[in-house]
């Protein structure tokens, strides 16, 4: 009984600290929450409400029509499909060639290869565009999705290789030695031992490559034609070529980024792991 009076203020202080921290965290998060709330609000309002002053957060009538309009009048189904194809192909190709490469570079301790990958990650995307644009023009590929798939490899391959180098460097060499003593060929060592163990790393590489490819804008504005646009280019073009009406524009913006945001929420752990690992290594 004598102890309680000592303990109680301590607990009280801790709860107070926690409430204070929660409050501070809410303030930090509020620009994010308010932004996305406003984005949703814009996308669900008719022109009249979007032009109102003072601004309206929750309208009386939701303008679901904005979303219908985006898909109907702007060919968004096609652009969505283009995005899926470009991102899907560029990510899968990057995994197929990048995961073994990460393994090889890690095992060979090929520092020079690693430095090339790092510089590739630092180089602005634009500087790849001039030569590849000319190359695609010369190969007469413009107008198909191939130029975009290929140039997205500039983004996805270095990410995958980089993350996988880091991952394979930390997987113990003894396991592979044990496998080779057990009679595995180098390819079997990779496929049956190294690869299954690296699965979490592959997931991280996959998610990051997917997001960065999906979000990419600069390659599309140069290489995409009317029928080969990806979503970021399509939404940007809505801005430049049409009477700017905010509702559909915000709806389109939301459609573009929603898949990524959902992925971010569900795969938060992997994204954090990938970015911080890449960060610390990329240094």
């Amino acid at each position, binding site marked *: 009984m004598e102890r309680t009076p000592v303990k109680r203020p301590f607990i009280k202080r801790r709860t107070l600290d926690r409430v204070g921290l929660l409050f501070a965290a809410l303030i930090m998060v509020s620009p994010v929450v308010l932004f996305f709330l406003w984005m949703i609000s814009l996308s669900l309002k008719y022109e009249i409400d979007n032009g109102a002053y003072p601004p309206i957060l929750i309208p009386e009538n939701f303008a679901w029509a904005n979303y219908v309009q985006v898909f109907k009048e702007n060919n968004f189904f096609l652009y969505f499909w283009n995005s899926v194809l470009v991102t899907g192909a560029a990510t899968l190709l990057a995994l197929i060639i990048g995961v073994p490469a990460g393994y090889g570079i890690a095992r060979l301790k090929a520092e020079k290869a690693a430095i090339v990958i790092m510089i590739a990650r630092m180089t602005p995307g634009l500087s790849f565009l001039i030569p590849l644009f000319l190359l695609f023009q010369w190969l007469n590929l413009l107008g198909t999705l191939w130029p975009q798939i290929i140039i997205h490899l500039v983004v996805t391959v270095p990410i995958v290789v980089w993350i996988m180098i880091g991952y394979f460097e930390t997987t113990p060499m003894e396991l592979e030695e*044990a496998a080779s003593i057990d009679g595995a060929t180098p390819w079997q060592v990779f496929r049956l031992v190294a690869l299954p163990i690296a699965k979490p790393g592959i997931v991280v590489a996959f998610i990051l490559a997917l997001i960065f490819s999906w979000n990419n804008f600069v390659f599309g504005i140069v290489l995409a034609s009317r029928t080969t646009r990806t979503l970021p280019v399509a939404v940007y073009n809505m801005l430049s070529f049409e009477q700017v009406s905010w509702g559909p524009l915000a709806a389109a913006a939301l459609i573009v980024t929603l898949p990524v945001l959902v992925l971010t929420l569900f795969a938060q752990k992997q994204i954090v792991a990938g970015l911080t690992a890449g960060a610390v290594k990329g240094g």
Partner: protein
Amino acid sequence: MATVTLQNIQKRFGAVNVIENLSVDIADGEFVVLVGPSGCGKSTLLRMVAGLEEVSGGEILIGAREVSNLPARDRDIAMVFQNYALYPHMTVEDNMGFALKLKKADPADTAERVKKAAAILGLENLLDRYPRQLSGGQRQRVAMGRAIVRNPQVFLFDEPLSNLDAKLRVVMRSEIKAMHQRIGTTTIYVTHDQIEAMTMADKIVVLHDGNIEQVGAPLELYDRPANLFVAGFIGSPAMNFLEGRIEEGVFRTDKGLILPLPADLSPASAGGRPLVYGIRPEHIRASDQGIQGRATIVEGTGSEIFAKLECGGEQLSCLFRERIDIRFGDTVGVSIDEKRVHLFDKATGQRL
């Protein structure tokens, strides 16, 4: 099962000579322990036998096959690693059957052999578990099981017990030994722990700086160490070394302590050269006559008493098996079992 022959093995890392020229013969079914302090080249040697490390020169024969150019997978050997190297994504059963699966063996036969090995090691109930669900001792057994299942020509062990706690280490030590006695496969076992070497080996190879110091049965090394290094390395607590010369049939240390000599040792052969007198602590008895010394350290474990005595400027470690009453600072009389004295040439370190 097979003999293993290492002939004139050399190993260089860049300009660094790790092993200069080393030859060992291992008989069929023999349990050989490579022992030495860290950095002596014992693990490198084992990895060269395994095919994980190349030889820079010389030959390795398993049976009659020259294997030094074969990759590990073609050598028909099994290895137990220090940290077990169990495949974390496979169950115990899959871990143990992995090598057979790679050989495309009949699955039913594989299951049968895994079950048999599991029975030997008491792992029957753990076959569906993953390595992370096992205790250290169980992992160790699985690693051994993985080796047994394959029925290879040679077992290699790379300090397999060093990750276990002291108690488990003793248990596993006897289990490994029992396993070897049961299946009789030629075994090469690397450790830095001389007690492991003494308790398990048929033959011990003592390595130091990439050279073999001595090869022999455990008791041979204990009784007749070939040089100062082996004398100091084998046996715990370590042998007392006292520097001095033979004078008039006795040994006089540089600080003037007179020590007895075995009768059969002819002083003429030692001829006044600087020598090292070696006597193991357990070969010194408490005695009322003999050398008087002051106890500077006294440690009793119950079964024995370890004491360090200062006698005429020399330090003498003693291990008494009988219960005697000594305290710090007491003066104690001890006598040396002169049949157990070892004499070494100080200049060369070799036994006389």
